[in-house]
């Protein structure tokens, strides 16, 4: 397909890998933010093309991985109510809350549906006026326009039976939290290209300056990722910490104005609990007061559930790049994609699931 195939060209990949090897003269640690980038890096083996001096660590950019267990418990409780249809993206249905996941709730009689788009959830509400349709709205800035649009459409159509559990998270505050942490290892970032397609690049300049970390807006194909990494390494070697755009065919500096306007109309910034990372100020989106009718926890009188005790999963250290999946004692034994202990093993974009899928064999071959 156009704008995909040419970015998987092996000659260009080798050229870029060669340039990276010549550029990196000292050891550097760079984090790719987005789980889609993590998946591509592990799938295509891009990290294995890098010189030993360059370490890629995998960031928290997987929304289902950072959605709090309490939020999932709320969605599960709603799905088990008579008359409620709970829908969300496929990945979200398999992430355990403090106990079960949504697919288990479905097996126990809950009406749980997988949808491709929040607009499909609005259609369900339109077609089933006798049911309360609740959309579990997770995502980063990339997904916020679609979720906001679902609310606007439901309002315009006067659908009284549509509402949302909103667990939206924002990327720049998480980058600040990672860089500001005392045990931080990250020296530069590959920023998430599709988040920037919506929001633009304006939020990153202050972060790059404050923490002295270069931030390169990067796409998702092998050529995109290596080009972003090369530009980040050139900055690190030169002692620069600027914002660069290595995904200019998709990202404009101002982002997408129409999308930002829709998001701003429906959502407001709030503090948010990230699974594995804790509470981060100003890192989430919630429905504005004027859209409170579409707020499912409020509509159904749900109270914030008690905090779930942390389990064996070390997702917090994985998501901050402090540990690799192989360093977790449960990896591949007590924790597998079929029986995950934590979210990074569930989503195909979670670092643990990507390593389990693409690296288990090569690792056992090395060991043998």
């Amino acid at each position: 397909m156009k704008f995909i195939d040419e970015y998987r060209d092996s000659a260009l990949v080798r050229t870029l890998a060669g340039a990276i090897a010549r550029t990196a003269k000292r050891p550097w640690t760079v984090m790719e933010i987005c789980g889609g980038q993590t998946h591509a890096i592990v799938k295509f083996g891009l990290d294995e093309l890098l010189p030993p001096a360059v370490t890629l660590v995998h960031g928290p950019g997987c929304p289902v991985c950072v959605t709090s267990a309490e939020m999932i418990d709320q969605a599960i409780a709603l799905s088990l109510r008579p008359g409620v249809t709970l829908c969300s993206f496929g990945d979200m249905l398999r992430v355990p809350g403090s106990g079960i996941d949504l697919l288990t709730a479905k097996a126990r009689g809950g009406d749980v549906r997988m949808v491709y788009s929040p607009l499909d959830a609005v259609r369900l509400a339109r077609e089933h006026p006798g049911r309360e349709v609740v959309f579990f709205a997770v995502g980063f800035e990339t997904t916020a326009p679609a979720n906001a649009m679902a609310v606007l459409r439901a309002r315009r159509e006067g659908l009284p039976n549509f509402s949302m559990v909103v667990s939206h998270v924002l990327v720049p505050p998480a980058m600040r939290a990672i860089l500001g942490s005392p045990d931080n290892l990250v020296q530069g970032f590959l920023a998430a290209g599709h988040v920037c397609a919506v929001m633009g690049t304006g939020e990153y300049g202050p972060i790059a300056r404050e923490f002295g970390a270069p931030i390169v807006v990067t796409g998702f194909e092998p050529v995109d990722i290596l080009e972003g990494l090369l530009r980040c390494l050139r900055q690190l070697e030169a002692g620069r910490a600027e914002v660069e755009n290595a995904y200019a065919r998709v990202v404009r500096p101002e982002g997408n104005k129409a999308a930002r306007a829709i998001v701003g109309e429906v959502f407001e910034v709030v503090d948010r609990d990230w699974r594995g990372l804790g509470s981060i100020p100003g890192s989430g989106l919630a429905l504005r007061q004027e859209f409170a009718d579409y707020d499912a926890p409020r509509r159904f009188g749900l109270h914030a559930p008690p905090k779930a005790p942390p389990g064996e999963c070390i997702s917090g250290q994985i998501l901050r790049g402090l540990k690799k999946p192989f360093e977790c004692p449960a990896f591949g034994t007590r924790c597998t994609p079929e029986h995950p202990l934590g979210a990074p093993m569930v989503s195909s974009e979670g670092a643990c699931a990507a390593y389990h899928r693409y690296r288990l064999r090569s690792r056992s071959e090395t060991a043998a």
Partner: protein
Amino acid sequence: MCLAVPGKLLSTQGEDPLERSGRVSFGGVIKEVSLACTPEARPGDYVLVHVGVAISIVDAEEAEETFRYLRAMGELEGLGAETATSPP
């Protein structure tokens, strides 16, 4: 989760900003996509689609610019390798 796929916009329908949509071909697979966030998208454009919504129009000139730069880098590298291996 932030997966977004480029596809070619074949036709558009609707004038209302919130309702405007288009038929988009992803390598031959055709889907209906919301154009509410890309009001300037026209048939023939490549749009980047995420959960049923076009969030950006792919800029073909910028894409070509990147390839020009990368090809030049590849040629330079080839040149460098030749110089290094050719006898003095």
